[in-house]
């Protein structure tokens, strides 16, 4: 049964697609987070700029956006993994029987 799966092109498709998707999203999260950290270290003045003339500064929507990006990225991954990838996975297991 293992050989059957290993030789199934769909298995390679699943592993390649899901792994590259996961690492791409990981890279996006790392860039967003470390970008934020570096902005805090080097861009204090920018983050302190007033948003549309009021007291609220640009830093707040950016910080909240980083939090929301974490939630959105997990949502994107779960949607595709539990849909498209699990369907492919189901076919692979079906065909190995």
């Amino acid at each position, binding site marked *: 049964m*293992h050989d059957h799966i290993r030789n199934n092109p769909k298995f390679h498709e699943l592993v390649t697609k899901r792994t590259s998707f996961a690492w791409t999203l990981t890279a996006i999260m790392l860039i967003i987070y470390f970008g934020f950290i570096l902005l805090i270290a080097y861009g204090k003045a920018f983050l302190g700029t007033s948003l549309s003339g009021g007291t609220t500064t640009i830093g707040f929507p950016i910080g909240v956006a980083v939090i929301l990006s974490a939630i959105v990225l997990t949502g994107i991954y779960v949607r595709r993994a539990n849909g498209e990838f699990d369907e492919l996975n189901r076919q692979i297991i079906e065909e190995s029987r």
Partner: protein
Amino acid sequence: MKMLKTAFAAATLAAGGLMAATTTALAAGADMGAAEKQATNWHAIVMFVIFVGITLGITYWAARKNKTAADFYAAGGGITGFQNGLAIAGDYMSAASFLGISALVYGSGFDGLIFSVGWLVGWPIILFLIAERLRNLGKFTFADVASYRLAQGPVRIFAATGALIVVIFYLIGQMVGAGQLIKLLFGLDYMIAVVVVGALMMIYVTFGGMTATTWVQIIKACLLLGGATFIALGVMSHFGFSFEALFTKAVEVHPKHGAIMAPGSLVTNPVDAISLGLTLMFGTAGLPHILMRFFTVPNAKEARKSVFYATGFIGYFYILTFIIGFGAITLVATDPQYIDAAKGGLALKGGGNMPAIWLAHAIGGDMFLGFISAVAFATILAVVSGLTLAGASAISHDLYANVFARGRTTEASEVRVSKMASLGLGVIAVILGIIFERQNVAFIVALTFSIAASATFPVLVMAMFSKNLTTRGAVIGGYIGLIGSVGCVILSKVVWVQSFGFADPIFPFVYPTLFTMPAAFIGCWLFSALDNSPRAQAERAAYPAQAIRSETGLGAEGAASH
């Protein structure tokens, strides 16, 4: 600045679950005398007793349901993704993140956001790289996964050592935090808190196992999210749901004025900043009690859903703590009844951890103050229960059943060992909680999260993704990360200078992760590549079969129920 230091020190005390510390903060040290005993708060005590009554009822129900090892370690694998997401949030949101972050925002505004964000961004990484593979390969502990195709003995001993160091120090942080909180919130003695927390966690874990622990965490998460939502709504309704109005008022009354709207001096040194970021992000992904939660769901699909829900709840919670911090600036700092007149300025009665608590009073009166105090204390119980179960499973499932007895044991005796280990860990936690009452515990955050990021996480990722990993590589690489991170934390300012009293730290940074995590990865890779023993060849040959189970879940379905 003094305010900020106090907030950090108090926050660091309030739980090991907390990572709120940078160079400045850790350099400030933990002032153990910070929590002054307050008048006895009967509302809080009554509500806490109700919480305990309900959770003990659940423990009784869970104990009758618990029959197999899978029931005990993994709640029979029958928790849904949504329930597990709540339980993870309950396991992860500590009293420190509630009281500590809102106190940090109260003291310095924007800087609080830096920590909220750091606390959250590890979750997507757990989802993308770890969660489903962990579920597919493992049974009860993350060592199941690390040792899946490697030699059981050495890999499990390494994994259990790392897990136990993290669990024990994390427990110390929680115990000391519980002791300080009970003085503040209930007006009772330190000792009472340590003994009550120790006794309750032993009961939950020993009798109720993972089922009871999960429900304690779910209830706590609902209470904490509900309470924080109520406070935040109270604040926002006060300002007509306008953030601009809230911020304008805060800038007007805060002594730092406009400076609270931009980053301050928390993050300046880029090496420390990046190392802190790595520690927060990857430390979360290597905590044994967090990883263990993924064995309670039936399959990879639910494991993924649990991370999505957990990330949503935790992210939402951090946004609330932010509103609470600003709410406290506008509604608490302006009201003389909460201000410590002797110290003046922003200083509150009861010390640096109090902004969220006094804000609860300002919004909901005595009853609500009691409710929030009880929730803050219940929060600690949920965290220590998860920790104790993770520590006990490292002892019984990894060390006893798979190393000492080499797999030749019965499920019943393994569970019995686990229950004895829970009792043992409870006693140790109480004793250490008492010993550490007046010790500096600021190092705990750096220590536990650095070990998780530098030892557990690299070995787990390599075991899942590297077909060349061998036992020798995993063990040497893992110990490089473990010994390196423990050593660097000891030689850094928090221990070397603040606990041992030397003039200068030997390791110049607060968090070693920037160096120790890559060192562990390189160690795993290099010593695997150099390993050409027959065992190593067999281990490499076993990777394709592991990959099939790890990627498709084939063979994993029944893992939790044998």
